[in-house]
């Protein structure tokens, strides 16, 4: 007899959405989150507004969390980790361990959804010379989100409002030397969204975005990029910054202004590194524990990505969100819905065939 429980690993947007949907279907779900709080990156990294749509990240995530928590079919375990897994589709036995005290418990699950997400690229690892750990005023998208959420976007070293801020795109993405050859997909949109927020909070601040290509697919073009440029006067300059050097108490960004065909050395008060996505530690650990194939970048491999975007290399185990590679929220939520459906139907198919077998033998 197949277990009627779906185990969801990860309490971010994908995991919460899958839990909520399974609960709505009346399917039993156990959601495991290793951290003590739910909400994933948007909460953990204090996102200001969501990309796209500009809704408050906290408000939107709380809505998801409440919906999952309120559902009687959903059981949520925060502060628990996945330690071991055996069995196959219909009958997985997954041992969970409580962080800190080592208490352990085994969940019998018919199917599993992995929603362990991504982590931001560590800019200390880049091959260029952005000096993230040397210069206080070189920050990441996440740092910018935090300041904007508190409505206090300032020069970190001085505490005053910046005259000039720039974003450097593709940090840790599209780079063979770093090993991340893929495009992280969301950073162009997020930088542009943050640029709009900076201009709104501090209208006297000039904001520049240095880029290789602006990748604003779909509606991000007209909802984010065009308003950033046309309404909020964010300045886009084609040509990436190669290095940052200290000049007085400011930063000098150096690179090429490619459409002018000239080198540039321009002073900035704050430099925001548009760091890309990498698989989170949780994604890498869980993939190993569950025996899932990973691609060359250590994201969970999806063998038939185009037509079956949530199936992993193991039958009965599905993936949703950025554990499978760079995803935006739209992708993540769609995948969560698809994975919930696949996880539930896996269980029901097995239950149906079991009951047929039983009635045949009877």
């Amino acid at each position, binding site marked *: 007899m197949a277990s009627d429980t779906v185990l969801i690993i990860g309490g971010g947007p994908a995991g919460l959405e899958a839990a909520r949907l399974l609960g709505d279907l009346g399917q039993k779900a156990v959601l495991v989150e290793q951290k003590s709080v739910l909400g994933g990156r948007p909460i953990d990294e204090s996102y200001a507004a969501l990309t796209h749509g500009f809704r408050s990240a906290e408000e939107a995530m709380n809505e998801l969390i409440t919906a999952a928590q309120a559902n009687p079919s959903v059981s949520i375990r925060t502060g628990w980790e996945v330690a071991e897994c055996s069995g196959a589709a219909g009958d997985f036995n997954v041992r969970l361990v409580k962080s800190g005290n080592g208490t352990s418990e085994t969940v019998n699950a018919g199917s599993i959804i992995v929603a362990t997400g991504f982590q931001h690229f560590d800019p200390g690892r880049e091959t260029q010379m952005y000096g993230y750990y040397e210069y206080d005023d070189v920050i990441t998208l996440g740092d910018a989100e935090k300041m904007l959420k508190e409505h206090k976007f300032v020069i970190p070293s001085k505490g005053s409002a910046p005259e000039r801020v720039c974003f450097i795109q593709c940090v840790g993405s599209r780079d063979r030397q770093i090993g991340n050859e893929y495009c992280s997909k969301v950073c162009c949109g997020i930088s542009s969204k943050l640029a709009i927020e900076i201009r709104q909070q501090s209208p006297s601040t000039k904001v520049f975005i240095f880029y290789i290509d*602006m990748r604003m697919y779909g509606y991000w073009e007209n909802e984010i990029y*065009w308003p950033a440029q*046309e309404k909020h*006067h964010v*300045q886009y300059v084609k040509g990436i910054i190669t290095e940052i050097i200290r000049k007085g108490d400011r930063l000098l960004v150096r690179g090429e202004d490619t459409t*002018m065909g*000239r*080198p540039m*050395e*321009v002073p900035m008060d704050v430099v925001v590194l548009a760091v890309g996505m990498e698989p989170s530690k949780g994604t890498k650990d869980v993939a190993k524990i569950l025996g899932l194939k990973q691609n060359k970048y250590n994201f969970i491999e999806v063998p038939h990505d185009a037509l079956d975007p949530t199936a992993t290399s193991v039958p009965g185990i599905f993936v949703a969100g950025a554990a499978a590679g760079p995803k935006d929220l739209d992708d993540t939520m769609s995948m969560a819905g698809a994975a919930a459906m696949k996880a539930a139907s896996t269980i029901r198919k097995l239950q149906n065939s079991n009951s047929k077998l039983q009635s045949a033998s009877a």
Partner: protein
Amino acid sequence: MAVGLDKVRPENIHEEKSLILEGMDISGHWNRMFDPRVLTDYSVENLEKVAALPGGESLMWCYGCAKCTGVCPVDIVGDYSPRKIHRKTQAGMDLFTSPDLWLCTTCMNCLRVCPKEVNMIHIMPAVREQAVLNGEVPPELQKAFEDTAKHGNPLGQPQRKRADWAKSAGVPVPILKDLKRPVDVLWYVGSYPSYHPRGMDAARAAARIFNALGIDFGILGAEEKDDGDSQRLAGEKGLFEMLAEQNIAAFSKYEFNRMVVTGPHEFNAFKHEYPKYGGDFTVLHYTRFLVEHLDTLKPMLKKPLNPSTSSGRSLKVTFHDPCYLGRHNGEYDAPRELLRTIPGVELVEMGRCRENGYCCGGGGGGMWLDSHTKDHTQMRLSERRVREAAEYGAEVLAVCCPFEVSRFEDAAKSTGNDKLLVRDILELLDESMKG
């Protein structure tokens, strides 16, 4: 050589062994860049200044796709395009004092292809208006402004002589003031057809055609003033408004059913700009007006224009679309219909024609910026165009904008294409009617 591949062989490139430019010796292997290489700052203030002007907003919208550069007529002879203007201004250039400000002819080919609708037809006049207020105007343009203000025409000719051309038209050219009765058509002649020798040829041809067709028409004579549209686009909005008011007052004195204009710039002014000042009249460019009379006109065109009737070879005529008739107002067919009706004429299209027609350089004030443009480009736009006409094997370059005859005739001479004849369509029709 294939048409358009104007490649220069290395042996045809000559380097100066010694050269002194503006007192500086740059002999030898000189660097092609004299400005500092490194961009040390982005002073967005200058871009903000442009975007703050009513009409200047869209310069900020450019995302650098460079579609405009591909079709900008100025970039072919120089280093100029809307994308470049956006980038240079973003990098700190002061457009208000830059020579680039006066290179745009407002031909509208950029706007035709621009995905972001960056509108140089609004941006340039807005910035130029400020430059005019600041007194930062090239002297030749300033003179045209002053002549227009003083004499009612940019050629600086006396107002009272505006209808003198009609004396030798050989047909009656009624002046409304003397006619003292309503007419079907008020023919607005325009400044160049009234005063420029080659413009007058077209005006007289028009007068003869109108007479032959039995059109009930009259002109304003000394009451007519320049339409002012090109002065507006060159930044003199105040002057334009003054002329518009004066012309509207003159038009309003008389009863007529519709206006026919000789020039596309006047057509554009009366159709789109004068209504904003209360002057709402039905206006037709002469090409569309004559197409309406084609059935009557056709039998009158008796004389074939081909050089030798015995050989049967037709005269190869190409047509230059005026920017303000074509792109600005969507009229591409009427001029071609007229040309095709003329016996002995074979219409040969140039590569850049219709929507992608090249610009003669005369629009947007370019008519009065010849020295400035010459100083900042490799060749005049009219010279580039004449070369294209010659490349396509044209014997006659037909035009229907009064700015163009003199521009192209000069260009034909300066580029050694003396054999290429430049004729207004009116002149060709008139010639064919002589049969």
